[in-house]
């Protein structure tokens, strides 16, 4: 198969990317405007309504106090994960096919983390006091509680965001320099400032490669640790269905699964809307990511089995009650079956190379996986709380329109941000593609 972008030249790559970024048709603005409008109406206004009226506008109620917002929180952290894996882990292992897609995947990580952070605030009862969760010196001498998993969430996501941002930026510096040469107007000065005086000397390339390697190694453990910490929010409690030792690997696997599915969706949309992208995002990438998804789906299925079986083996009345509620009670039994269909049965078709190489099939498959992974979090988070220990308090949870609208709105926010970002920052790594293209003439060093 075509493993490398073909028929490209150094100049061609530059021109392609610049055209992609600067030549924006009215259609694009129309679509962007539509998504921004949707974000305002589906996300911002309901949230303002919720802040003014109180958390009571949600369907939450004691004991089900972690609802769709937390589901979305975990889901978007998951979406963030694949970007890091692609850009960092594959950077270290020097996997060649990562180059063309790493930048867009990493951008997705960053934007998803912004959505995540906002879900934390949306979920809070008093979001205007959010800064109390940061350990900052204050005259009241109140510190944050370092035994709380929620505290570590703040750290984990903060670290993740900062290091992803720095890693992404370091990778972009050479691109900024080359862009500043071939653009005009505000872009020129902007890119020039962002390129930090990059000249492309041997020493600079050397340092850049070193820094990228350092940050890639720094971020790599975060792929595992961030979602483990998110899973401890649940695993540290004693609620049946939450208190699972398997949660850390289970969440990480699920995160990567949904993350890769999200990457495929984004790449496919890019390919469909910008034919130019077809030169860079190749079917070969689909093939590779398809293999990843297959492996992750199988691991995920195994861990799902373990989650249920360990609960069943515990054989306490509350665990059994929880499993019965989650798997065998009417609406959730269907959801559970659908989740298994989406995440275990459907990905099996990826064994066939034909499916992996068909972008349409991959696209629809990934939509199912995304839905399945969202359902997985839904089945874990509110449903475990519905069946806690005292039967008198058993309580079912249904999200209200505010929650659902913010859920959909978050997606709109994500899309709008993505649409803006890809027009400002090079979404394909120019210098790394050039490495693929091959050096036109021999140079010393690099």
């Amino acid at each position: 198969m075509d493993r490398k972008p073909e028929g490209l030249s150094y100049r061609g790559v530059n021109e392609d990317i610049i055209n992609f970024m600067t030549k924006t048709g009215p259609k694009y603005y129309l679509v962007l405007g539509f998504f921004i409008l949707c974000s305002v109406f589906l996300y911002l206004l309901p949230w303002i309504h919720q802040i003014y009226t109180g958390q009571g506008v949600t369907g939450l109620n004691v004991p089900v106090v972690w609802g769709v917002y937390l589901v979305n929180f975990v889901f978007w952290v998951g979406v963030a994960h694949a970007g890091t894996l692609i850009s960092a882990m594959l950077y270290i292992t020097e996997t060649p096919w990562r180059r063309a897609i790493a930048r867009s995947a990493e951008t997705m990580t960053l934007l998803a983390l912004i959505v995540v952070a906002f879900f934390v605030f949306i979920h809070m009862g008093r979001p205007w006091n959010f800064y109390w969760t940061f350990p900052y010196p204050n005259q009241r001498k109140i510190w944050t509680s370092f035994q709380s998993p929620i505290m570590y969430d703040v750290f984990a996501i903060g670290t993740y965001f900062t290091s992803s941002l720095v890693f992404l930026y370091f990778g972009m510096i050479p691109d900024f320099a080359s862009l500043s040469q071939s653009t005009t107007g505000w872009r020129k000065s902007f890119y020039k400032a962002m390129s930090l005086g990059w000249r492309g000397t041997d020493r600079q390339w050397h340092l850049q490669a070193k820094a990228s390697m350092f940050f890639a190694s720094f971020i790599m453990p975060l792929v595992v640790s961030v979602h483990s910490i998110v899973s401890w929010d649940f695993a540290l409690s004693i609620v049946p269905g939450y208190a699972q030792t398997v949660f850390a690997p289970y969440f990480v696997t699920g995160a990567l699964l949904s993350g890769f599915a999200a990457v495929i969706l984004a790449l496919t949309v890019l390919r469909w809307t910008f034919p130019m992208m077809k030169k860079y995002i190749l079917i070969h990438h689909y093939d590779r990511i398809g293999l990843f998804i297959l492996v992750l789906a199988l691991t995920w299925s195994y861990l799902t089995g373990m989650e249920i079986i360990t609960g069943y083996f515990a054989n306490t009345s509350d665990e059994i009650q929880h499993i019965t509620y989650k798997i065998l009670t009417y609406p959730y039994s269907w959801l559970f079956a659908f989740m298994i269909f989406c995440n275990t049965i459907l990905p099996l078709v990826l064994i066939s190379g034909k499916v992996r190489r068909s972008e349409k099939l991959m696209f629809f498959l990934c939509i199912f996986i995304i839905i399945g992974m969202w359902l997985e979090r839904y089945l874990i988070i509110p449903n475990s709380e519905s069946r806690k220990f005292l039967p008198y308090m058993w309580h079912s949870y249904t999200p209200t329109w505010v929650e659902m609208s913010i859920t959909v709105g978050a997606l709109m926010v994500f899309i709008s941000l993505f649409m803006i970002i890809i027009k400002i920052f090079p979404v394909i790594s120019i210098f790394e593609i050039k490495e693929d293209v091959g050096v036109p003439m021999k140079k010393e060093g690099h």
Partner: protein
Amino acid sequence: MSGIMQKIQERLQSYRVPGYYKKYDYRWTMVIDLDKCNGCQACVVACYAENNLQTVGKDNCGIARNMSWIRIEKYYEGEYPDIKVKFIPIMCQHCDKAPCEIGCPVFATYHNQDGLNTQVYNRCVGTFTCATYCPYDVRRFNWFTYKRDKPLDQQYNPDVTVREMGVMEKGTFCIQRIRAAKDKAKDEKRPIKDGDVTPACVQACPTGAMTFGDLYDPNSRVAKLAKDPRRFYLLEEKNCGPNVIYLKRVMKDGSKA
């Protein structure tokens, strides 16, 4: 070397006590005799009056968003007409190893020197973690801004905070009464006697099902009642170390006394 190790060990052990206290000043305990409770809900009403609990209106009450810190759980046994109802009043159990405390990121809930699990409303940011971790589901959340109608706002207890929207709250064992009793005892230069502190629910209970006191004091009524063979802790197997003792006679053959 071993001296240092021992010191480190002691230090680490002290961290295992919630709030890092070596020993609490008191160990407030409530004993509830379920054989005496008739489910009259007087304790619930007393709690509403004493602790400025808000009434939430018909709609919210209908979906069980009422703010009662103490609730009477009713369990029915058998079919009509041969039906038996069992009551169990449940409030915050002030667990020694409170699961809610490890969850809170901002120390809004912590153990004070009396061994009580307290909630600092002003510090609460509303992450709901404590309510999730609580095995007894006794935490209540201010879903909206609740207000009392005009003359009724004169009924607020001045000793208790009125909570604002977005904070978590829960039973306190009437901490304001404990405080008052401590102050009085301090003025009179004596430790608190048994019977100095009576939470509102205990005071209101017409059948005398509830008793409150300090378990450290071997002569207190709760210490005596705690030796009762009928004693049990609610969800003791969860190992949270609750401080509410229930008394209930259970017959060997499973029949109800």
